[in-house]
């Protein structure tokens, strides 16, 4: 089958901290928002794909249906670290692409709790590995990736910090972002150091959140009306193939480059054709390396690229206009679908104050530590 696949409805809740709500309640809210956006009901959905990390063994997808309508459809609960939501979206896309279904629902939901992700690595002997065998904490891993870029190309802490300045600025235009606060360069660089060169304001925000999308076959989209539909031009998912240091320092670059290459090939386009990007800025250092990984600029040019203003709203290729994970927030399982929502909203011309003018093609990228990398290309119909 080579029929096109469309997003008919997509939405997200405003990200925040909701310790007194349930994970299925969060997911159900986004599911209903996306169904409303598509003008459809749960009775129209033929399958549900759910992305989540923290509660994935608890049948979150089924519990969502218990809250909004138990129709007996197949439910697949997906976990792929920070790529869980994008993986659920991709599974939904593939199911429609295969011709098996005409209308399916993809939901991403996460309830995070505060603090650092992971644990201190205490083994059976009770000895914490953290600090004795380096750090396995996310801020340090992504800091090491940034320092690798510094080593190769002379990238400075200011370059990384500018990513945070930009994304926090963008989030002031997004009412669904966790924060709407301007953070000047001196504030970003002067914030508490977490893992050099990443300060606290260069780390993504742990929040709770959910997002959902209704995905349709070409036949169904034509039948229901294409008015606000967005075409999925490409979907790519990779894992970490063998590279020199991957087993020591997780290689986030190669799997991203692989996914980007596959997505551009499938879409029959190049990075120069992309009008906006939502990429995985889990840390400020990550956004810098992904400029090159996604081909938005040449090798070694990422520092100059952020300096040039190219990735600001109004620039050549705006990146993370939503505010990104750094300020919109990063509810792991929801992030991949929230990115789809952001790009689709621009392609529909409905992004209000942060609208990327004339957007026709957008790219989303997420990266799960482990590794799982997903890239999607969306197109205005």
């Amino acid at each position, binding site marked *: 089958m080579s029929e096109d696949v469309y997003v008919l409805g997509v939405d997200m809740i405003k990200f925040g901290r909701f310790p007194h709500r349930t994970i299925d309640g969060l997911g159900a809210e986004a599911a209903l928002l996306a169904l409303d956006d598509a003008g459809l009901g749960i009775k129209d959905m033929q399958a549900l794909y759910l992305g989540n990390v923290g509660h994935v063994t608890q049948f979150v997808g089924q519990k969502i249906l218990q809250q909004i309508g138990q129709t007996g459809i197949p439910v697949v609960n997906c976990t792929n670290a920070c790529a869980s939501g994008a993986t659920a979206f991709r599974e939904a896309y593939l199911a429609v692409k295969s011709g098996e279904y005409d209308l399916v629902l993809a939901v991403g939901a996460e309830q995070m709790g505060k603090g*650092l992700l992971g*644990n*201190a690595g205490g083994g059976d*002997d*009770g*000895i*914490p*590995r*953290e*600090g*004795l*065998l*380096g*750090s396995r*904490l996310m*801020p*340090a*891993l992504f*800091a*090491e*990736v940034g*320092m*690798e870029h*510094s*080593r190769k190309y002379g990238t400075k802490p200011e370059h990384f910090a500018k990513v945070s300045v930009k994304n926090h600025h963008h989030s002031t235009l997004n009412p669904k972002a966790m924060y709407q606060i301007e953070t000047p360069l001196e504030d970003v660089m002067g914030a*508490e*150091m*977490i*893992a*050099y*060169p*990443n300060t606290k304001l260069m780390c993504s925000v742990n929040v709770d959140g959910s997002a959902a999308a209704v995905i349709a076959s070409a036949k169904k989209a034509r039948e229901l009306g294409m008015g606000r539909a967005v075409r999925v031009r490409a979907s790519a998912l990779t894992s970490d193939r*063998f590279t*020199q*240091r991957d*087993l*020591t*320092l997780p290689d986030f670059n190669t799997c991203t480059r692989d996914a980007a290459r596959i997505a551009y090939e499938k879409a029959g386009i190049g990075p120069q054709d992309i009008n906006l990007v939502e990429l995985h800025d889990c840390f400020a250092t990550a956004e810098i390396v992904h400029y090159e990984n996604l081909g938005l600029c040449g090798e070694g040019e990422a520092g100059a690229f952020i300096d040039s203003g190219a990735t600001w709203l109004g620039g050549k290729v705006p990146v993370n206009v939503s505010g990104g994970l750094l300020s919109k927030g990063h509810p792991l399982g929801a992030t991949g679908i929230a990115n789809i929502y952001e790009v689709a909203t621009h392609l529909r011309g409905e992004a209000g104050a942060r609208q990327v003018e004339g957007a026709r093609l957008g790219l989303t990228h997420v990266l799960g530590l482990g590794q799982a990398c997903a890239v999607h290309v969306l197109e205005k119909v």
Partner: protein
Amino acid sequence: MSDTALANPPTIVPFLKFGADGAPYLEGQQCADCGEIYTTERMACSKCFSRKPFKAVRLPTTGELYTFSIVHRSYPGIKVPFVSATVDLDGACSLKGTLIDVEPDPEHVKTGMKVEVVFRELEHKNKEGRTYVSYFFVPKKG
């Protein structure tokens, strides 16, 4: 368990071993086909998929700091700041560890600096009251 094993202290990673003379060293597993070296066991080579038995090799004690971060915030009870280091061991594999005996700031820690692997006793003891041994990186002298 042999007398030698009983005589050796407990270690923080299984690939930290002791020679017949009691001196600690790190042991890698080398692919018989492509020569890639790993510090953990596997069913086949990640790189070339060879299933031939791996060969145990002594890892070198010198290398180069490939990249690092200086960790200022960690879990409760973890001493900060410390330098999280990724080191390319000379002619072998890369290895994650903590770089010590250096000021933990970007003025003193530089990518590309030469380092050595050293072995130190930890504060931690096992049930029998024996002290654990780990490996660390230190700047290479001279």
